[in-house]
């Protein structure tokens, strides 16, 4: 039996109220996206500059190599995974979790411990029985710096105490509103230069004076650089999340629009059908009286 006009109206109203929510969420995401996107772009210049210094420092190292540059056999690994706290953001979290799986396969046989920033990642990983050292909600606003400092400090401590042989970051790199890529970065030990990079830097990085000396500079610079890198990853991940949510909500909005259009059509049809039926009844009655 076709739905009555009144039922259809009720559905239209329901969808409209959902649409109001998705519209609001889209707008909120758009505003937050602009904010973190600026942060990400500015942080990129800073992290690049720090990275260049660290790499040059690495070329000057010569024989005396710093502990944080030194590769060990990677038996125990800490993977810091950045996801969102909330859903409704399309494939954002799924793609990160898939990347985690790929990472696990790549490092099969290794002892991987996780640290989750973002509730969704922690939930998904807990279901797979992964060993999670710490799970926390995504920090926001002024809490970001504090949390980043603490996480970086702990990771450094654990690496130096040889609890982990390597620390990796897995975050979504923001490319544009439609594209974000789950990216793995080796956090510790600080990756060595590739031969090409070393060559291109060596041209002008020879005879660098270091002040006060290599060790003191490395001890100050590298932790700061790592903190910057972690901060940058977090901001990029946030930008990707808001972009993903904005797009997902816009799609939901468009879909709602479409469904409402269809329902309007069936509502009009159903209404016309009742009118026609009533008219036939009346005409039939009149005919019968006249007959």
């Amino acid at each position, binding site marked *: 039996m076709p739905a009555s006009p009144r039922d259809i109206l009720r559905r239209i109203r329901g969808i409209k109220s959902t649409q109001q929510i998705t519209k609001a969420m889209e707008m909120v995401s758009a505003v937050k996206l602009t904010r973190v996107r600026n942060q990400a772009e500015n942080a990129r210049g800073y992290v690049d500059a720090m990275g260049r210094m660290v790499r040059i420092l690495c070329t000057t190292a010569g024989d005396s190599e710093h502990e944080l540059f030194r590769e060990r056999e990677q038996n125990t690994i800490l993977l810091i995974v950045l996801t969102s706290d909330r859903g409704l953001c399309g494939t954002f979290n799924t793609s990160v979790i898939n990347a985690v799986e790929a990472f696990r396969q790549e490092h099969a046989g290794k002892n991987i411990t996780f640290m989750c920033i973002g509730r969704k990642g922690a939930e998904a990983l807990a279901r797979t029985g992964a060993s999670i050292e710490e799970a926390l909600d995504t920090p926001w606003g002024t809490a970001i710096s504090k949390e980043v400092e603490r996480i970086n400090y702990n990771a450094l401590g654990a690496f130096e105490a040889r609890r982990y042989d390597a620390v990796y970051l897995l975050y979504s790199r923001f490319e544009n509103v439609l594209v974000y890529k789950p990216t793995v970065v080796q956090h510790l030990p600080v990756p060595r230069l590739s031969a090409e990079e070393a060559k291109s830097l060596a041209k002008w990085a020879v005879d660098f004076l270091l*002040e006060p000396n290599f060790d003191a500079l490395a001890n100050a610079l590298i932790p700061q650089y790592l903190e910057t890198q972690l901060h940058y990853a977090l901001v990029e991940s946030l930008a990707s999340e808001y972009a993903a949510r904005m797009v997902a909500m816009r799609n939901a909005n468009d879909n709602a629009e479409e469904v409402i259009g269809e329902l309007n059509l069936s509502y009009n049809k159903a209404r016309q059908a009742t009118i026609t039926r009533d008219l036939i009844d009346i005409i039939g009655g009149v005919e019968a009286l006249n007959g």
Partner: protein
Amino acid sequence: MKNTSFHLKLITRDRTLIDGDYAFAVIPSGAGPLGVLPGHTSLMGTLNAGLLVLRDSEKKETPVFVDRGFFMIANDAITVTARVAELAAVIDVDRATAARDRARQRLNSKDSAFDMFRARSALNRAEARLKVAQSMN
């Protein structure tokens, strides 16, 4: 021909504060103030909380307060990265004075509940800020 200027970029986490050509700079390096002229040798080092002075070819000076950072000089290009960088003109003198007094009080109190290292660096920071602000007047 010898260069008469070098390029200096001052970058913080939030923005690029300075990006321009200068003839002379004083960098508050970890080993003390360091004067830089064009053609300086390649050098990398740490920053102290203090005054970064930039002088352009017209002898106009720009004082900036910087803290927690690093600098690199190479090929007449200087990169300064700092967690804190404030143009002297925007320093909040009242706030810095209050911070200085608070830090002094903590250092003078015999109460070990305060982290003396933090108090001392807070004092250094506040004094450096005030010095930068006063250099404007």
